């Protein structure tokens, strides 16, 4: 329980820190912010004046921060000039798409990589182990951008999957099954790119943890007692290997979010990635801040989830507090 509270506190502190950091960015040359807006003929001087007053640029910094946080809490993330709409709703749709992509990619990656890693570490067949190991190393070494562009080229040349965007034209007219199928076909390319990048990392980590566990004295003792291989693996080795593997989750999420940005832009998937890129190129800085904050929140939430998993799986952490007394 204590562990949970501590982790929750840490997550909240990190959220605070991220918000402070993003706020610091908004304060970086705020004048030039609006100067750039002034150059944009689509925005009238009156709008700029209202926005300036709205963001209270004349008040001291802590008040500005409080004001900003309040408006965030109300759901007011600022205004996006390019799309001519408030940032909030824009962000939501995009965030949902990114969530769909990243959640699916996460589940699939771990579903494939963990058994692969465990099998590779525990099986006796050296050749398969080395093959898997080499493939993982290769997958890690190739930069995501290359994987993305290469797979895109392959997909486009050979018309294997539907490329571009999330849905086809006339999506709404399709039946439920048709919709699912359409979505699935569009997801194939981005998911494949993400999988190629992610499986290698996770598999290597899992394999390393499991082989380390399998080599320990107590595993050898269990083996000499005649406990069967399957039971050894699932009952004795894996629960211990779970801890370092779950701890990987945070770093994995960070890498995945970064990769998803790339993949979304390259494949045209309408997520947070293309949004933040367009916003950067068109100097829509409120959008950038909001998108960055959102991605940070996603990560912190994901990390917290991993902490929960850790508590559930590792009895040492649950009992740790009791012993510390």
């Amino acid at each position, binding site marked *: 329980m204590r562990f949970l509270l501590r982790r929750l506190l840490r997550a909240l502190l990190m959220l605070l820190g991220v918000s402070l950091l993003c706020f610091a960015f908004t304060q970086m040359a705020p004048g030039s912010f609006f100067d750039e807006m002034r150059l944009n003929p689509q925005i009238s001087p009156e709008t700029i004046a209202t926005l300036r007053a709205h963001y209270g640029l004349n008040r001291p910094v802590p008040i500005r921060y409080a004001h900003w946080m309040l408006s965030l809490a109300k759901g007011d993330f600022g205004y996006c000039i390019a799309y001519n709409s408030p940032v909030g709703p824009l962000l939501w749709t995009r965030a949902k798409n990114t969530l769909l992509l990243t959640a699916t990619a996460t589940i699939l990656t771990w579903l494939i990589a963990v058994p692969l890693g465990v099998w590779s570490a525990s099986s006796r067949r050296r050749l398969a182990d080395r093959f898997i190991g080499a493939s993982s190393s290769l997958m890690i070494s*190739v930069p995501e951008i290359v994987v993305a562009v290469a797979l895109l080229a392959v997909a486009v040349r050979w018309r294997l999957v539907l490329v571009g965007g999330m849905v086809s034209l006339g999506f709404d007219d399709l039946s439920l099954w048709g919709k699912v199928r359409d979505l699935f076909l569009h997801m194939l390319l981005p998911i494949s790119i993400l999988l190629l990048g992610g499986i290698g990392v996770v598999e290597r980590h899992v394999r390393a943890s499991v082989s380390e566990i399998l080599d320990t004295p107590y595993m050898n003792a269990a083996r000499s007692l005649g406990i069967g291989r399957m039971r050894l693996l699932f009952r004795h080795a894996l629960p211990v290997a779970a801890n370092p593997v779950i701890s990987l989750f945070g770093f994995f999420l960070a890498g995945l979010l970064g990769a998803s940005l790339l993949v979304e832009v390259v494949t045209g998937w309408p997520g947070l990635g293309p949004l933040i890129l367009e916003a950067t190129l068109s100097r829509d800085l409120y959008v950038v801040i909001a998108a960055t904050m959102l991605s940070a929140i996603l990560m*912190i939430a994901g990390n917290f989830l991993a902490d929960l998993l850790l508590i559930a799986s590792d009895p040492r952490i649950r009992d740790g507090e009791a012993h510390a007394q």
Partner: protein
Amino acid sequence: MRNKTAMCVLMIALVLVHLALLFAGFFAPYDPAAQNRDLSYAPPTRIHFVGSTGFHWGPFTYGMVKDFDGYREDQSQQIPLRLFAKGDSYTLLWVFHCKTHFFGADRPARLQLFGADAYGRDEFSRLLYGGQISLAAGLVATLITLAVATIIGTVSGYYGKWIDEMLMGSAELFLALPWFYFLVGVRAFLPLHVSPKETFLLLIIVIGVIGWARPARLIRGIVLSARTRNYVVAARAFGGSDFYLLRRHILPETFAVLIPQATLLIPQYIAAEATLSFFGLGISEPVPSWGNMLSTLQQYNVLVSYSWLLAPAGALVITSVMYWRLADRLHYWLQSH
């Protein structure tokens, strides 16, 4: 023993690659910025040994002529390849003016080993010059990260208490952020259109500074444990100052961590520069970098028809894989010591 030879081979290969890129002017047959609208999207020039007059020892090529919807070779004139040919002038190592290139061919042939891009610029030459930029970005950004990480990690580990808590807390914060999103975010706030030199500097500073957290934690761990070692305590008993203790006893311990970290960071930073330049947030035209050379592939017709423009991707893969393999081997080697 095998591990050691593998490491040496990799290191030598990497050094050779870096040297080749350093002398890009010499190995590239053409000026990377020289446009040639007649040869827009020309395919790679083919090298022949057998021509109308039979087999030749020296390789030769033909000129390219624009055809119906592509290019064909103009077989009327056989133009031999030369070693150490005279070509466009360039500056070797930014100091010496030279005109000799490693290989080349006379006009009207244009020896474009990897074809030409939209403006008719030689892709191979751009690859070499672009490599300079991309690799330099990776290396310098790594240096910046490690420098910042060493300073912060050392201060944190050596002085401890609230400084340590504060610095490591912010490190956790930085680690909690999705690195790449943050990179784009920070880049967004910096001026978009500046001179290529400033862009380069900006880019490497941003990439370098953001990545300080993980190596800083490692260094802090080392400094922390080294600080309590008895020989450090004894040296203090002899009257050694903080500076002496750090210089003589503590910092040398960090090298064992800094070098593997460097081999891990360099390929990641090269990839980061490539990705940012791909999106138009990094090095901008006309300066070539492997990233911005790949950005033309965002156009459908380019992606489908002109596959030679994927050359920078190949270059990225080769350098990246070599660095990662080196990092792996280094890791094994250090573990067994």
